[in-house]
């Protein structure tokens, strides 16, 4: 699998710095699970963060700080030491690799075959995904094979991560792992590739600004 459409520097920096809200972060983290190239770029950014930490003007710790720390690690440390091996992910690994990677799989509660899709009409389905940031709308979408979506403008930032199948947007093909990052200035006309439904994760700004193609698809159902 070769990912062709990656996370932009700005978005990846926000991830590395920890400033991304949960909804956007979910899409970037899921792309990172599928994209060694972007993980390498992320490492460089985190190295830059570490270097900036080295150079920051230090803020003196309290005089009692280390003694308190010493007492704490002696008393809490032994009990709380985590295993170096880390932990296994929640959903059982079947022989085939899941379609939905972590962290997305845990957010929707299982892999694709366990999902309860809700019809949007015209052959499209969706599953809203709950996040707590209050500023994004996150959903899993299933676009029917070959189905075009009318051309339109955007109201805000929009991230679309392909998980299965593919879509074309103009000349560009987006397949598994590809992330389309669009903002208010972009006109696009995505069309699911014939032959297979396209499943993607879609994150948009919260409803106030809502004019994306994804939402247009959802509008008839939500009545917004």
């Amino acid at each position, binding site marked *: 699998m070769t990912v062709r459409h990656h996370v932009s520097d700005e978005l990846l920096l926000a991830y590395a710095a920890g400033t991304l809200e949960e909804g956007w972060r979910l899409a970037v983290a899921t792309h990172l699970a599928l994209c060694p190239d972007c993980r390498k770029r992320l490492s460089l950014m985190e190295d830059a963060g570490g270097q900036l930490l080295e150079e920051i003007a230090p803020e003196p710790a309290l005089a009692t700080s280390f003694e308190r720390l010493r007492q704490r690690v002696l008393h809490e440390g032994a009990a709380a030491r985590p295993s170096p091996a880390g932990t296994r*992910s929640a959903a059982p690994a079947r022989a085939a690799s899941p379609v939905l990677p972590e962290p997305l799989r845990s957010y929707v509660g299982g892999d694709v075959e366990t999902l309860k899709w809700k019809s949007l009409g015209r052959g499209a389905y969706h599953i809203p995904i709950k996040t707590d940031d209050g500023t994004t709308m996150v959903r899993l979408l299933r676009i029917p094979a070959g189905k075009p979506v009318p051309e339109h403008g955007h109201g805000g930032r929009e991230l679309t991560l392909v998980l299965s199948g593919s879509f074309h947007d103009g000349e560009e093909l987006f397949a598994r792992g590809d992330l389309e990052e669009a903002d208010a200035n972009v006109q696009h006309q995505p069309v699911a590739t014939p032959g297979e439904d396209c499943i993607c994760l879609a994150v948009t700004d919260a409803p106030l600004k809502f004019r994306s193609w994804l939402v247009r698809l959802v509008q008839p159902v939500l009545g917004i």
Partner: protein
Amino acid sequence: MVIRHTVAAVTTCMTIAVPIPAPACPDIPIPKPRRDCAAGLRVNMKRARMSETARELTKDEARALLEAVGRDRDMAAFEALFRHYGPRIKAYMARLARDGSIAEELMQETMIAVWNKAAQFEPGRGNVSTWIFTIARNLRIDAYRKTRRPDFDPNDPAFVPDDTPPADAVVEERQEAERLRSAMAVLPQEQLELLRLSFFNDCSHSSIAETLNLPLGTVKSRIRLAFAKLRAALEDGQ
């Protein structure tokens, strides 16, 4: 990533590790963060006269100390790491904390995580300052954002591993760190400033643009330029 979460969880209040990081510990009341997107500009000015710590730790020394903590639970090594990193972590936390006691508290939590997690540090696969930065950052996110912190999980069967295994040699790691350090030292001030505001002050790029009275496009292009230079500097050395 699960491993990072485990540490954050252990050091705050959660007891179980799950793939989706949990929200911050509700037991420590943390007031709303202070997001001052211009603060970095002022703070950096006084850098020259700040020298709490006796002298700088080299990367090799930091690595040796961290390994001693992980392997031998060496308290003297832990103290040396604390003397160097504690005040830096506190300064990082203070960029958002409204008062010093919160910054002190979050610094303590970070150092406890360093102690607990030291055995997991892989010397050939990252340097100590990066490792500590990511721990501090994750703790800060968990403290200030009341949401989960989704991260990828290298143990997930759907995770796509690296095509080429990362260079496992400490020597190579050291050279890369040195090249990055030199490349950052010659970054234009305006680019470096954007990186500091992004990493330290929890400012979105649009709020940075507003504060600095720059078009958002300019902020984005400076970020791209900065990382293009850093990437080029690392590739030159290979």
